[in-house]
């Protein structure tokens, strides 16, 4: 059930140290003579443990917002505190380190390295964190097991289904034990059944304490989040709490229909 946007925002602001606190975030892309104002002053707090869906039409600024939250880009002006630390204007190498250790990314197109085993794909962030090989392998196996792909560690992306590939990508996002997972249209390339499974996995991770932010334009997917942020024309126009649906329950409900023989 949606509740009042203003009360939700004030409730978030009263937390002592939110995981994410952005104030007056502005991003302007120079485009020849003119400039595109992708974000026109966004302020929001996201507490640890929230499951947030970011919605809005294309060009609304939601992707720019995600890139800034994910430290993939730096704002033109405004502040961004990640766990109390100002990260808005750090140099590229420092941002790379934050992405490496504190944020997990899940993309619409999975972005797995082709012709590379699931385990090696999952290990990638650890490689750049300088973790020794044995520890890398152990962590990658553990995370693959966590997403239910323990038996697939030597498969390459081409040998895996779309849902499995996205689960490998989620394992990769998890491998550094980040506090925050950013998922950009994680179900955009998946059918509805697998989409449910992926959302169930994200909900499970969220219940385990990880903050999840999902960018989506599908209401069905946003329905699994506990808070909905809506963007339009570079501004945050809606911020409501949501009673999340349980994706795992929906998966279970579909199963007898999908596999009647299994019963």
């Amino acid at each position: 059930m949606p509740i009042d946007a203003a009360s939700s925002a004030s409730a978030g602001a009263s937390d002592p140290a939110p995981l994410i606190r952005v104030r007056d975030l502005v991003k302007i892309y120079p485009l020849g003579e003119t400039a595109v104002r992708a974000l026109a002053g966004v302020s929001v707090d996201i507490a640890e443990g929230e499951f947030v869906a970011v919605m809005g039409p294309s060009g609304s600024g939601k992707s720019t917002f995600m890139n800034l939250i994910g430290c993939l880009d730096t704002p033109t002006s405004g502040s961004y505190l990640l766990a109390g630390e100002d990260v808005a204007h750090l140099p590229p190498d420092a941002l790379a380190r934050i992405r490496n250790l504190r944020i997990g990314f899940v993309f619409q197109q999975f972005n797995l390295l082709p012709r590379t085993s699931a385990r090696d794909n999952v290990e990638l962030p650890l490689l750049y964190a300088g973790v020794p090989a044995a520890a890398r392998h152990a962590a990658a196996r553990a995370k693959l097991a966590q997403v239910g792909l323990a038996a697939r560690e030597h498969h390459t992306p081409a040998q895996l289904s779309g849902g499995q590939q996205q689960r490998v990508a989620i394992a990769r996002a998890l491998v550094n034990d980040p506090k925050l997972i950013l998922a950009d249209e994680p179900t955009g390339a998946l059918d509805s059944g697998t989409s449910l499974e992926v959302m169930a996995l994200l909900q499970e991770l969220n219940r385990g304490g990880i903050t999840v932010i999902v960018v989506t334009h599908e209401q069905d997917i946003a329905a699994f989040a506990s808070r909905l942020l809506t963007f339009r024309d570079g501004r945050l126009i809606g911020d409501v709490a949501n009673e999340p649906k349980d994706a795992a329950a929906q998966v279970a409900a579909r199963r007898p229909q999908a596999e009647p023989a299994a019963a």
Partner: protein
Amino acid sequence: MNFLATLRVALDALRVNKLRSMLTMLGIIIGVGAVITMVAVGAGAQARVEDQIKSLGSNLIIILSGNFTSGGVRLGSGSQLTITEDDAYALAREIPSVQAAAPTLRGNGQVVFGNTNWATQISGITPEYLEARQWEVVAGRPIDPSQVDSAAKVALLGQTAARSLFGDADPVGETVRVRRVPHTVIGVLDRKGQSMIGQDQDDVVLIPITTARKRVLGGTNVKTRNVQNITVRVRDGADIAATEQEMRDLLRQRHKLQPSQEDDFFIRNLSEVLAAQEASSRILALLLAAIASVSLVVGGIGIMNIMLVSVTERTREIGLRMAVGARGRDILTQFLVEAVTLALIGGLVGILLGAVASYAVGHFAGWRTEMSAASVLLAVGFSGAIGVFFGFYPARTAARLVPIDALRHE
């Protein structure tokens, strides 16, 4: 990210694109192979010249009769014989580093045996001549000092002269007429081959210098003791330049030349001719290596080309790596290591190719080739350097990508 991990990432990337990696390497393989082969051919040619120097004797000096000025008219070299037999004996006697000094009186003429005749070079010599030229007698015996003293009518035949007159028959003991003067053939000389200027050194008849002067060549030289040249062998290990200077001083003194007068003789050192030839073969070797190096550079450009294509093609991969924590320098290192690995593996295979090609050239073309450790090391070092040089630009292009742009790249 440590270097070993970077190396693994680079090798994995190369392994993933096997065919392309191999084709890229091919340029370097051919380049390095060509350099090694060409250097081997060049070194072989140089070594051959050096061997020639050894066989001919670089410590051989020839003194020729020189300019003669008569009433202000400068006559050319050899127009008047200015050096004598006695000069030769004086050289041998007074300069310790001279091993042998052999005066030679030369002429041309017809040699007749039975109904065959042959125009050849006739040289009047002393026994020192064979020692100075290090020339062996393969059949019969050499001319001895008593035969010189008595102006005996004996002759030694060079291989060409012997074959022309006698065919396969044994000439020793036969009588030939040298310019109508009958001589007994007492020996046949060993094969000497061509001289540096292409003359057949075996086309010769050697007779005692006294016989030549009095009975065969005669002419204006009968009453003098002049000769055309003196062949001098310098002792092994002696300083050739210093010996030459001593000989010059001695001859000037003997010829009573004032300091203002120029030498009336020439001193020719065979090593000068050979040194010139060695220099030209060195230039040839250098030229070959330079041309081959061009193909190495072309191979390097091939690496740059492929690396640039690879960076463009793998932009999303680079974006992903950056998103999960790769710094610019990690990306730079990865692509640089890829380029250097391509170049180095290409270099190593190129060495094998070069070795095989050198052997093949030596075997089939019959050229002497010499592969040197230096050329191998140089080739490896150079191909590594090419990897760094031509890999740097693509690697830097990759490292400077902005993560979000790279991730969105289609």
